[in-house]
């Protein structure tokens, strides 16, 4: 009991929570294990070429960028389903604007225009979600459909080569490490430092965790939400460049898998579907992890014999299963707390029993 007028104090129950570094550490360990296994089974895995593919635009790079974008949308408790279709659209429009014959002074404004598409799509998404109060899943599903339709109209059949200079520039590597991959990692680290070590980052997390309370505290919740969806689309359009570098041709069917995989990567990296939690580094690691799985499954000798005929299906199946597993594991403490609260309500908690005795 607090003594009268001598201030106020309370016992605080320590709260168990998944620490922010845990998903990243778990992913790292798993990747190391899987990598070691793959290296022991297949000599191809550790080849310069394969590692470059794994990290570069044919592997983790576009997924890492779009997953970072998805982490922004998840941070405010929303989903951005349209990212895959936006990437496709950027590839398709890029097959016109980044034509093989163009010189750099034509390519530069063209690239800006492609990023502009991302900006516009982001603003449309945010407007639908914030102004018209549509659920983010439905709103972005609608923009997905529109973008997909436009892509099919522009390139009913694959065609139009992407400028080779652009592709090469995007694929530039130091040894087996793509330069762009290093840039993405640096971007992710800066992003996390901002999110967890600055005032504005705290404000963003606060809005994601509890919008009405943070608005009462004077946080610019509207701006944060708009910013999240615009950032998601911008990063997706940037990812579109690397997808273009991967396929090299205007193809209206290339990006469709990224809606799910971007969510999977962000969730594996620690993003919470309820908003307010997640990290950019985590999203990149999640993307790397998924790319690793997609990369090694087709290698010879990786799968035991009876699973070989499944090698085309397994990437998709394992992505889905891993996403579910991550959601359950990271929500573990919350589930546990809920179970315990239910238990305490039925049988009395330790504190209330103690109070009843005294």
């Amino acid at each position, binding site marked *: *009991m*607090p003594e009268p007028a001598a201030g106020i104090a*309370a016992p*605080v129950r*320590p709260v168990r929570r998944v620490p922010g570094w845990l998903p990243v550490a778990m992913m790292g360990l798993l990747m190391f294990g899987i990598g070691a296994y793959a290296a022991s089974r297949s000599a191809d895995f550790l080849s310069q070429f394969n590692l470059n593919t794994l990290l570069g635009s044919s592997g983790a790079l576009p997924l890492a960028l779009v997953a970072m974008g998805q982490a922004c949308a998840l941070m405010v408790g929303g989903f951005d389903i349209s990212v895959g279709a936006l990437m496709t659209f950027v590839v398709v429009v890029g097959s016109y604007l980044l034509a093989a014959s163009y010189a750099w002074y034509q390519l530069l404004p063209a690239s800006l225009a492609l990023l502009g598409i991302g900006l516009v799509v982001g603003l449309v998404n945010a407007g639908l979600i914030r102004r018209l109060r549509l659920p983010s899943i439905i709103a972005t599903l609608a923009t997905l459909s529109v973008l997909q339709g436009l892509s099919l109209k522009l390139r009913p059949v694959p065609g139009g080569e992407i400028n080779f200079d652009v592709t090469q520039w995007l694929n530039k590597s130091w040894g087996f490490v793509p330069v762009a991959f290093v840039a993405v990692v640096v971007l992710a680290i800066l992003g996390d430092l901002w999110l967890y*070590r600055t005032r504005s980052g705290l404000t963003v997390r*606060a809005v994601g965790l509890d919008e009405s309370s943070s608005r009462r*505290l004077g946080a610019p919740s509207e701006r944060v939400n708009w910013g999240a969806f615009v950032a998601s689309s911008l990063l997706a359009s940037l990812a579109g460049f690397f997808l273009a570098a991967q396929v090299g041709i205007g193809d209206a069917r290339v990006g469709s898998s990224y809606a799910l995989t971007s969510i999977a990567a962000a969730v594996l990296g620690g993003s919470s579907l309820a908003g307010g939690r997640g990290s950019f580094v985590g999203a990149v690691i999640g993307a790397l992890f998924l790319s690793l799985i997609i990369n090694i499954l087709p290698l010879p000798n990786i799968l035991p014999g009876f699973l070989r005929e499944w090698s085309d299906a397994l990437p998709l199946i394992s992505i889905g299963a891993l996403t579910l597993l991550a959601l359950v594991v990271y929500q573990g403490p919350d589930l546990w707390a809920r179970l315990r609260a239910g238990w305490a309500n039925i049988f009395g908690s330790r504190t209330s029993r103690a109070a009843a005795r005294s």
Partner: protein
Amino acid sequence: MTSTPPVIALSLQGVCKRFGAVQALQDVSFECRAGEIHAVVGENGSGKSTLLGIASGFLVPDEGSVEIGGVRLHTGHAAEAHQLGLTMAYQTYSHILDLSVAENLYLAAPVAERPTFRSMDGWAEGKLREYDVHVAPTARIGGLPLGLRQFLEVVKALLSSPKVLLLDEPTTALGPGEVEHLHSIVLDRAATGVGIVYVSHRLPEVLEVAGRVTVLRDGQSQGTHRAAEMSEETLVSLMIGRPMELAFPDRAGAATERDVLLRVSQFSAPRFGPLDLTLRKGEILGLAGAEGNGQHELLRSLAGVERAAGSVECNGAKVDLRSPFGALRSGIMLLSGDRTRESLFPVLGIRSNATIQVLRRFSKLGWLWRGRERTEVERLVERLKVRTPSIEQPVRFLSGGNQQKVCLTRPFLRDVHVLLADEPTQGVDVASRFDIYKALRAKADQGVAMIVKSSDPIELSGLCDRVIVISRGRIIDEIQAEDLNERRIIEGIVHSRRRAPVQAEQAARA
């Protein structure tokens, strides 16, 4: 001695606000001087919250103006009110539960006064010490007890050194010592020239701390009075009295001799208890109290909708309260206060809504017997006077009163021992109210025991056989039929603190 006119910190002039059919505020003018604690009291629904909402810029009044520190507020701009130096401690708090105490304080502090991000914990510790709150700045707010959270809500509002501070029911979760501590802080702040608006149900606390008191009744101001010249009795007299006279069905009387039907013992959950209750056959028990003192949760826990510890016996058998289904099996039924969300299927017709829990009665081998269902529902619609073109009318097209009557068909269609009614006439027109009271009383006369939670003391005094008053989750007063009237109930609610020691004694015995 000629004194200079007092500085007005906050002033509302001729404010009117209407929500649908309800006139929440009617030409209310209100002034809070710099350096005074100005209390606002009134019953539930008298317009206190609306007044605060308009002053803080969250609500736009239909008419009237707001000035903060002499500057006219563009009403409806919460951020502007904040810039003019007005902050508010919310009754429902503004904490982000997943963040730490320090992070919450940091977010609440004005940008200019925030320390660097790294020094946040040390800064927060200093602030907490300043207010004599002993809690680790790194503790997650969601893990703290309610009383501490409520206190921190006030601390947060004070961080930006406001000129006007609005406190909305700041003591609902505080113990006596904590209330005293809060009051000393508030008095200190007033002494430095802050104008403080103190909204509370607890008249002893109000009279202790406030300089002046404004009373609201049905959205109209009953004048501003000096607290020193007021007593609890005079304040209560100003709060009660409603022009609308309501009719109530006759009581059966002498419920005290009948069998006990419901026995609740050591019932507790985070928001209430532990408390004991007995309910006799055919008795209507009223549940009174200021909003947010656990009545709502108590009712829902008794219906198995929310979890609680303790034991409940109905008709001599233990009730399984782990789910609403368990409660229903024992004959305990809840009429939810949130009809359209929790009771009714708005797009379905009256017939489907009435019989959805008892379809087995009208079916054979899995096939529904529409004709029997129809005649039964039609009989009830007529009996309860549901005004509708047909029993197939989707209930979302019905008025609030008729919707409630549709809910009331359900206890008439199945065996019910105990009926729990949460605000049975909220959003119900006056004409329908009497029909609802009559239906409830008819059910009671069949031997059903009832608990009615209502924020309307007139309703409680007219309808119930007995009323208990809940404060901070405990029963603090019990009013028998012969003493039941509006005034007595309000006295029970607002005198809550004086009776607190009795409660403490009970708790000690338990």
